């Protein structure tokens, strides 16, 4: 089923504003982007509210008009000229010749994919397939030959196989890569076992977010998180069961599977699969009492000499030989590297962005003592705290300290002091009439309309300011040195964060420009208006600058321009300082110029963060 777009806020808040549908709700409903429940709520409301029904119809009419416009504008070019098709076929043939024949493997692969499309197999093929399957059932039972070994024999043979495999290297260290799956969560782990000193260490290679979840399932099931996939681990688990029954079955010609049914304990059933050729364990699974299943599959198995590894992989070198640890002891890996910390930080940034918590909410990220990312902050209430904490808690190498406002007041903490100073907010000004009071009254005779207009303009300016602030924070927190340690995935995440903020800020500035244009004609965002301020000379030098300029500097300029725009909008539309009275014209001109320049700056930044590799 398609996953619908949903907002983290409550359903009702998202759909309604002052007992009417929001514009968002109307469009999302028309576009089929709401959940079933939300769509039903919208439909019920539209049936009873004429005002919202009218707005919905107006939106539909706009869509219809847009499609009619597009059809009319493109009609002369459609259908596409047929003579170009031959050119394309010739170019394709030339490319095919240049690339040569596809490999046999690729042909087989694409053929198999096509066959898997069930809809493409005709009825006759289906019937033939089904009959063949029925005919093969007796053969299947014939192939299920009685177990060739008992459960204990199988485990002994598997354990002996592991011992044999470690004979090849001096001071052998077993390096086993595993894929561990729990429901939809899947992660990769590498486990290192120093055979001579019985020491184990491990690390999770991918999907760190799911690690805590899988780890919790391990602990709940009394399974050893830092163990290898091997016969000894399985034997220890089996011995710990109060009562169990075993069965060994053959899987095809190459594998044997030991199934163990436990009559007590958190694991209901487990199995271990070994290769017939060398009795090497390749996979195991644990079916838990709560019907979930942990599946572990071996991706690779190597035995390497200890000397080829970093000396401190199992802890401080001085401890080697001095400490004899039991097989099941857990040794944590060393402190996270700078790259791992940076990765955790960008992950936390992405999660906060998804929650909309990076737009002025008092949450601050700092790298603490070089070994963990500290996430501290104050949120409005318990619901928001739960939302933020549950989203962040699975990120490794982080320390969370999130308080609600009530908690912070009860136990004063040093957290907010440094956050508060940098958060954008509407400053409380001395109450004085707005500079454009006369224009506002002339444009909106109705007081409610005037208030609605001013509120919308102010909220747009404030939102733009919050976004610019969020961008500025990213620019400060990711200097060239910080970006250099990020891997490709983390860089991509940072790029998505930047492009998302820039796109949204462009939207906000554009909307604000249109809003302001209603009472200040000539400041709209039409191409003509955009070009009126920038002279050709300026544009040329700006282009030259674009190529070399660091994205962070551009963001800082955009941040200060957005702040200036915010202040100008407040002064012109909401309340002004007495000192502003004489400068009304200057503020007005400044606002127009700043908005246009902001658009140009943002366009250049958008291009830069979209197209270049971040540095």
């Amino acid at each position, binding site marked *: 089923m398609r996953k619908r777009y949903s907002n983290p806020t409550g359903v009702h808040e998202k759909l309604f504003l002052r007992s009417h549908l929001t514009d968002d709700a109307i469009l999302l409903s028309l576009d089929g982007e709401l959940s079933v429940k939300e769509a039903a709520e919208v439909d019920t409301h539209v049936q009873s509210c004429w005002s919202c029904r009218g707005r919905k119809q107006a939106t539909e009419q706009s869509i219809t008009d847009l499609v009619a416009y597009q059809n009319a504008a493109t009609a002369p070019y459609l259908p596409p000229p047929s003579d170009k098709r031959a*050119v394309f076929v010739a170019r394709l043939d030339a490319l095919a010749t240049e690339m040569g024949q596809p490999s046999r493997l690729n042909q087989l692969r694409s053929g198999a994919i096509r066959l898997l499309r069930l809809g493409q197999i005709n009825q006759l093929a289906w019937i033939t397939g089904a009959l063949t399957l029925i005919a093969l059932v007796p053969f299947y039972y014939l192939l299920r030959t009685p177990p060739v070994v008992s459960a204990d024999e199988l485990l002994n043979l598997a354990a002996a196989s592991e011992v044999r495999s470690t004979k090849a290297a001096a001071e052998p260290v077993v390096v086993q890569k595993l894929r561990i799956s729990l429901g939809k969560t899947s992660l990769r782990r590498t486990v290192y076992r120093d055979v001579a000193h019985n020491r184990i260490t491990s690390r999770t290679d991918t999907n760190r977010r799911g690690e805590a979840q899988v780890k919790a399932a391990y602990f709940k099931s009394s399974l050893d998180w830092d163990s290898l996939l091997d016969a000894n681990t399985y034997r220890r688990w089996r011995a710990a069961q109060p009562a169990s029954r075993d069965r060994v079955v053959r899987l095809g010609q190459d594998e044997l599977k030991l199934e163990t049914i436990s009559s007590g304990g958190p694991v209901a059933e487990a199995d271990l699969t070994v290769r017939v050729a060398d009795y090497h364990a390749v996979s195991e699974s644990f079916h838990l009492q709560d019907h979930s299943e942990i599946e572990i599959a071996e991706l690779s198995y190597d035995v390497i000499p200890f000397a080829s590894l970093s000396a401190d992989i199992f802890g401080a070198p001085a401890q080697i030989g001095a400490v004899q640890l039991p097989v099941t002891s857990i040794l944590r890996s060393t402190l996270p590297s700078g790259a791992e910390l940076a990765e955790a930080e960008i992950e936390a940034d992405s999660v906060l962005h998804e929650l909309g918590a990076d737009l002025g909410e008092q949450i601050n990220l700092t790298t603490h003592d070089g070994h963990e990312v500290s996430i501290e902050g104050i949120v409005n209430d318990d619901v928001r705290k739960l939302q933020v904490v549950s989203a962040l808690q699975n990120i490794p190498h982080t320390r969370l300290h999130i308080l609600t406002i009530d908690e912070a007041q009860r136990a004063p903490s040093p957290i907010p002091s440094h956050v508060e100073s940098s958060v954008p907010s509407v400053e409380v000004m001395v109450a004085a009439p707005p500079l454009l009071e006369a224009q506002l009254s002339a444009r909106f005779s109705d007081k409610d309309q005037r208030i609605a207009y001013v509120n919308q303009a102010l909220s747009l300016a404030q939102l733009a300011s919050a976004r610019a602030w969020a961008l500025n924070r990213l620019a400060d927190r990711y200097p060239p040195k910080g970006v250099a340690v990020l891997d490709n995935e983390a860089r991509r995440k940072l790029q998505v964060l930047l492009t998302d903020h820039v796109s949204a800020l462009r939207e906000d500035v554009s909307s604000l420009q249109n809003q302001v244009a209603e009472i200040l004609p000539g400041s709209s965002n039409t191409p003509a208006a955009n070009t009126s301020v920038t002279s050709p000379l300026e544009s040329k030098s700006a282009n030259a600058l674009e190529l070399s300029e660091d994205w962070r500097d551009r963001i800082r300029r955009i941040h200060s321009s957005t702040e200036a725009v915010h202040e100008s909008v407040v002064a012109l539309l909401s309340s002004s300082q007495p000192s502003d009275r004489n400068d009304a014209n200057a503020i007005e001109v400044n606002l127009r110029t700043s908005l246009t320049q902001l658009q140009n700056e943002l366009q250049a930044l958008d291009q830069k963060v979209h197209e270049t590799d971040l540095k």
Partner: protein
Amino acid sequence: MSLEYFSRTRDTWNLFQQGGLCFSAPLDATSGGVVGLRLNVAREDVTSRRADGPEQRITLLYDALRPSLYRYLISSGLSPQDVEEVVQETFLRLYRHMRSGGDEENLRAWIYQVAHNLSSNLRKSRHRLVDTSPELWEQLSQSTVHSAPGPEEQLLQQERILRVHEGLAKLTQLQRDCLYLRVEGFRYREIGKMLNVGTSTVSSSLRNAINRLTKGCA
């Protein structure tokens, strides 16, 4: 009208999937309309090639998607010459993608994304803004003269189209991209992926764009 348009786009896609992935199945019985005809024509043209070869798949995809891709690219401000170049380059890249064993899930979205990126680069290199020339307006007026039944309806329709025309000129490039990709029947998530922005940005862009058009059309 718009809903009919969207469903027609989806039908095209369904037919395209049938035609694109099973070349031995008889298409004529199931594929009606323009797309079915196009696929049949394409099959005759490529009989000399291997029946299930990637070249034939690309040619079929080219025939099935070219008209809608044309409409999208013309709307986004490219000249007809540039459009044909972008379309051909897109399908040649698709061929390389398929030959290198690339992911074939949702090829239609893949094609639009590549075409969008190519057209964005071209637009930037041409410094081309949205076409607002008097010729275009003349052409729009003519098309409404032919389609509307009476003089009064013609006038009304012309007014509407003029307002959309003016409204579109005030939108940002992102808003226009979102609108035209939505017209092509893509979901918000798909559009976000194509334009490298979040789903919420797509949603707010579409909302602001439609609000602007609605204000202009009121």
